[in-house]
């Protein structure tokens, strides 16, 4: 079952399950693949595993050079030997989410025929809508496959934090500690609104071709780039943008007919956003973007428990660490505090810290010493309570 097979261009470590996964929407995928990376060593009693869940546009390359972009792993300052998630001590698993485009089953995968055989064309927009709960079920399957009954911890930021919450609610006996970072128990109307702008940008791209762009050998790159640019603004803060760019100008590229140039100049912040947009489309599939943003929009943990978030965690023995960042307006502190209070109502053991920073939502990915210290200390404390041998 385990294999390292070549996909169209790239090799991702993965495992394929043939026993089917039934999705919340009612569709059953007969076969599904989970691409993942691991770091560190699983101990003898399989008690030191930490599942790292990635955010909307992240992937499984958490602590190593990205095979497409060549950039460092997205949490390379957090996951590694001697780092807060210490791979000398913990066995770290990071899967690509269901619906993703880095090797796990998603819109890029070849679709299943009704008889279960594989067709020659990808799912595209016909890929069934998935939810955060579906993503977590696929991850659970991987974790079981790796021989792990109880995870020492599940951690993630943003959508990864949603998954950490979902794990704790869905599999309380299989999660010793949950660490939702810069997350929320539901996606707010404002967040859904921003996602919708991004999706409409993709739909408006002439190269979109109703989602069947591969047939024309095209990519809706402009639309996807605009979606990324719009989203990227929400990941930052006004303070951070001012600090990094202010109103500084730079020379506009001569051949750039799309820039509104006065005297051949453009604002640095414009150039920065365009760069973010254009690099993003090289590594991300538009249909995956639609699928995953939709999954985030659907997320509402309380709604699954009759409207009371505390019910989702009633009687839980899982230890929680919630972290928010002062300048994060996408997943603001009020959201984390609401989760903390619900956990209090459920009688859970919860730690909650708000880290002062001007870096906005993206702070969870960046060098924030207080955050890293908090993370390391919390995991150390949990390891003691879980009876993991000291290093």
């Amino acid at each position: 079952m385990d294999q390292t097979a070549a996909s169209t261009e790239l090799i991702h470590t993965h495992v394929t399950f043939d026993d089917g996964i039934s999705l919340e929407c009612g569709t059953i995928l007969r076969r599904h693949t989970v691409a993942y990376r691991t770091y560190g060593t699983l101990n003898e009693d399989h008690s030191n595993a930490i599942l790292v869940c990635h955010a909307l546009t992240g992937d499984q390359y958490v602590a190593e050079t990205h095979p497409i972009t060549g950039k460092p792993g997205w949490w390379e300052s957090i996951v590694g030997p001697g780092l807060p998630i210490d791979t000398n001590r913990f066995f770290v698993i990071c899967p690509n989410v269901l619906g993703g485009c880095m090797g796990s089953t998603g819109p890029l995968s070849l679709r299943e025929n009704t008889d279960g055989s594989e067709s020659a064309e990808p799912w595209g927009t016909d890929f069934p809508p998935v939810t955060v709960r579906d993503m977590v079920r696929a991850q659970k399957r991987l974790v079981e496959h790796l021989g792990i009954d109880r995870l020492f911890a599940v951690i993630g930021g943003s959508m990864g934090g949603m998954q950490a919450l979902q794990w704790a609610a869905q599999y309380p006996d299989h999660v010793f500690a949950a660490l939702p970072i810069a997350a929320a128990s539901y996606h707010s109307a404002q967040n859904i609104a921003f996602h919708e702008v991004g999706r409409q940008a993709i739909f408006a791209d002439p190269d979109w071709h109703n989602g069947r762009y591969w047939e024309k050998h095209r990519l809706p790159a402009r639309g996807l780039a605009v979606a990324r640019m719009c989203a990227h603004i929400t990941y930052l803060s006004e303070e951070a943008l001012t600090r990094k760019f202010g109103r500084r100008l730079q020379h506009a590229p001569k051949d750039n007919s799309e820039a509104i140039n006065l005297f051949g100049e453009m604002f640095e912040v414009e150039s920065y956003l365009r760069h973010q947009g254009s690099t993003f489309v090289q590594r991300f599939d538009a249909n995956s973007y639609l699928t995953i943003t939709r999954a985030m929009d659907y997320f509402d943990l309380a709604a699954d428990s009759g409207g009371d978030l505390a019910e989702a965690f009633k009687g839980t023995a899982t230890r929680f660490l919630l972290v928010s960042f002062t300048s994060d307006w996408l997943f603001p502190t009020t959201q984390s505090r609401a989760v903390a209070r619900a956990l209090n109502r459920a009688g859970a053991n919860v730690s909650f810290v708000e880290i002062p920073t001007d870096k906005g939502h993206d702070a969870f990915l960046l060098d924030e010493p207080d955050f890293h210290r908090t993370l390391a200390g919390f995991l150390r404390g949990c390891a003691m309570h879980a009876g993991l041998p000291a290093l």
Partner: protein
Amino acid sequence: MSAPDPVRFLAKNMRVDLALIAGMIAPRSRVLDIGCGDGFLIDHLFQTKGCDARGIEIDMAQVTQAVAHGLPVMQGDADTDLAHYPDDAFDYVVLSRALQAVERPREVLAQMLRIGTRAVVSFPNFGHWQVRWQLLVTGRMPMTPAWDRPWYETPNIHPCTIHDFFSLCEQEGYVIERWLAADDGGRRAPWTRFLMLANIFGEQGVFLLRRR
């Protein structure tokens, strides 16, 4: 961006009174420490008595410090956050040297004895002779080791005496299981059996309460 959080500086430099409080708490019990600072007491209770001890602290820097030490502490405010805990969630709820600094002491006490079977409360005694003497002789607001901030910037907005606290407990129907007066270093003083003397010579009161 957001306005800085209000910082309340509480007298946290006298850790000896935490030893008195710890002495009132049974081993292996569930404890919530309100205003836990960097988590000294909950760490002590876990290490020495095997308690499931958790903390709330208003000052974010202290919370970060506590969590970075592996202690289960959340940022929160005694006045607003206790309402989110279920009834009887704890065996003991501790409020150390902070009763005088909360906005609604009576409600905070009521919440403590709703979410906990017992409450442990300590506070600096405004009836101490030095306080009385300074007010009487100088006609100015007292400045003592326990009351060390000028009136216009003190976080201690609800000073009370040991005598006052007895009255409040009676009025609210709380049973005082144990109490003691101590000097500011936290050492237990010999005159605690007499309320009148304790209210003059005790620099702080420590009370173990339960519902009637």
